[in-house]
């Protein structure tokens, strides 16, 4: 498995370096990824629930919007 690389650029000195990610940085990336996936799944679940209701009612999305307008 490839190591996770971190690049740093210091605006004051102009120094640039690439190094291996620390444990904390790997954990940070993991948290970002997990949160993003969780939100996407939450959104997908909401969409599925909405579609289920439309199916039970036997109406389209446009018809539902018309009812609520």
């Amino acid at each position, binding site marked *: 498995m490839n190591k996770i*690389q*971190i*690049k740093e*650029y210091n*605006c004051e000195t102009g120094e640039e370096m690439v190094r291996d990610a620390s444990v904390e940085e790997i954990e940070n990336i993991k*948290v970002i990824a997990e949160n993003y996936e969780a*939100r*996407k799944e*939450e*959104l997908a679940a909401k969409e599925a629930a909405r579609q289920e209701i439309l199916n039970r009612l036997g109406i389209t999305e446009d018809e539902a919007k018309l009812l609520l307008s």
Partner: protein
Amino acid sequence: MATPLGFKTFATGEVLTAGDTNGYLMQGIWVFASAAARDAAVTSPQEGNFAYLKDTNVTTYYTGSAWTNLDTTGMVNPMTTTGDTIYSSSGSTPARLGIGSTGQVLTVAAGIPSWASPASGGGMTLINTGGTTLTGSSITISSIPTTYVDLRLIIENYRPGTDGAALFIQYNSDTGSSYRNGSYTDTWAVGSASTWASTANQISPDTDNGTSNASINVYMPNYSSASTWKPNYCTSIVNDNATPSSFRGLYFAVPFKAAAAITSLTLTLNTGSFTSGTAYVYGVK
């Protein structure tokens, strides 16, 4: 004293009249031992008369009301280089002002003229010289000066190695719940009470890994404030990961809960590494 007749070249055999003598020959510069000798000899001087005084080696002329020394000193040219100019230093002493550099403007400092770079009246200054190429999984741009009014991040042609990856930003190495995404995946109502529920701000939607015409822009107004939260906002457009010729865009606030100046930015993919892209950080006056 006769009225001056100007200049004339006499021809051979020509008769020199009294008028010629008075009008031409007497219009030269008289020579006297001193001013006293001059005044004794010329009792009714006329405007335009000239007299050289031997004791002081000064040429004088009559203005119509008084004798005045003729200034024969002149000015020693102090200029040495193309573009030099002359200004008056210490009263009437001429001094050299060397040519300035390209873009400089003439100004005044300590009472004398000088060339100086014009004061910046606005615009953007690139802070990370040349931009920072996106490589690895995360980029941190640190030691951002706090001397500007706003901060602007522009990322051009960002492309992840993993298809559908998204890009996130964090500030000051803060990985806590100090953010709130304005993303379509994290809805919060404008004007309503909202919590700091995120650990990073999403600044790109799912992005194609094969083609990149991406442009990601994050604006950080009043970023150097040590007392206010940061109402940053993001405008992004990337190639859609399913249909790269189509686009996915984001346009929303990406607030950051920090009552401290932003001095570093960290750009992180949710998965994989960057394939390409360049980040530019500008200070905005």
